[in-house]
């Protein structure tokens, strides 16, 4: 990269905190989260929209951070897996994933957690079929998915009773 590489500054709210950051204009939100903001929970997978490892929320919507230009995020509200915990308490989804063996190597887990969070925020009573549909863009090479579906349903149940 040369000195005349175009650069962009944006202000965003990331996990409730206001941040201002400057980066090469060609960077994706995924690259800015990881490389500029040190938020490495969001993972680099395929980089092509085909695995869901990079899933985050922008303005309350589920998005793939590998396919979003960071330059587009000025003024945006971004939620990443680092923001799931409430103070020191795990999110019910995180708890259920740990308890039910929904994470093995864990590489896909942040993407699944964020995608499941978007689903349950919109549809707290999601059925197994709806959970499967919502997670259809997330790949896991370890678990075989059933534990993941179980964990999301168990968390939904817990959140409904809380």
């Amino acid at each position, binding site marked *: 990269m040369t000195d005349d590489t175009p650069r962009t500054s944006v202000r965003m709210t990331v996990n409730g905190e206001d941040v201002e950051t400057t980066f090469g*204009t060609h960077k994706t939100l995924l690259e800015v989260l990881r490389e500029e903001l040190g938020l490495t929970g969001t993972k680099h997978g395929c*980089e092509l*929209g085909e695995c869901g490892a990079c899933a985050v929320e922008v303005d309350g919507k*589920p*998005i793939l951070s*590998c*396919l979003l230009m960071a330059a587009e995020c000025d003024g945006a509200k971004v939620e990443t897996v680092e923001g799931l915990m409430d103070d020191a308490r795990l999110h019910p989804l995180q708890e259920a994933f740990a308890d039910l063996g929904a994470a093995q190597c864990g590489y896909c887990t942040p993407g699944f957690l964020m*995608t499941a969070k978007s689903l349950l925020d919109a549809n707290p009573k999601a059925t197994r079929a709806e959970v499967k549909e919502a997670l259809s*863009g997330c790949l896991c090479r370890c678990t075989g998915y059933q534990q993941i579906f179980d964990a999301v349903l168990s968390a939904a149940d817990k959140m409904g009773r809380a």
Partner: protein
Amino acid sequence: MMHAFEYAAPKSLDEALKLLGSAWGDTEILAGGTDLLSLMKDFVVQPKRLVNLADVGLAGIAPEGDSLVIGAMTTLDALLAHASVPTALTQAAAGVHSPQLRSMGTIGGDLLQRPRCWYFRRGHGLLAQKDGASMVEAGDHRDHAVFGNGGAAKYVNPSSFAPALIALGASVKVRGQNGERSLAVKDLYRTPASATEREFTIASNEIVTHVVVPISRSSNATYEIRQRHGLDWPEASASVAVTVVDDKVTAASACLGHVAPVPWTVDVSSLVGSVLTAESAAAVAAEVVADATPLTMNGHKVELAKVALTRALLRAAGKEVVR
């Protein structure tokens, strides 16, 4: 990681038009980015400037006279949430799996996404020629075209929306430096004769602004056949619109997707005048695929196209057998 480029977020359509170059490749239009960013990461396109349409006011759905006018930047989610969008189109949108793709992707981007042909995506060009021969024919072409493949182009048009919009008789509004024109969705596509051409009839400095869908009382439907549920394009799809009066078909149109370099409009007029039944649907579908010209590895797509068309017709007629 993409090459560096200049990024522009114009606030009006006029401003956006001024930022677009007159040769393909210098500038690219950014909508939801779900296709464009992967093309850039694979260095298939390497624009010097990206022009984002997010702020030019092209999102939204509104009735206008006898039509539904859908802004090009309307997302798949917004289409799915709108009650007046015809079934053939919502069924196509629902087929694009993963909530993220549906919240990011737009109708304009869906229509103008580039082919998934793996030779194209790996930098061998749209026509994938090497020493004057087709790499597709010599190589793995299980997902390639089974219609309209007699020339150099063997890829399939990837849009799930185009067949639905064509069956519905929709058009697009296109804005350029010299004003606006209207184009049937079918006429948005062409088969390029050389690798320097694109597969669209619009110029690099034109913007598709709206999709205009006639509000009709036809029964319409889309039926897709996919190898896997998520993260993939259909192997074949069919969209149809059928008008039935007193139990008899009075008009019928159909278009196949993912089987030819362009959305493949087919003639199903032999249905007119009779009752649509499982037998007549299967018969017209068999007639349609009799013209197919599969390559050595993709004969299965002919059968899939036939099944998709039969089932789309039955679905539109409310006679689908749900398995």
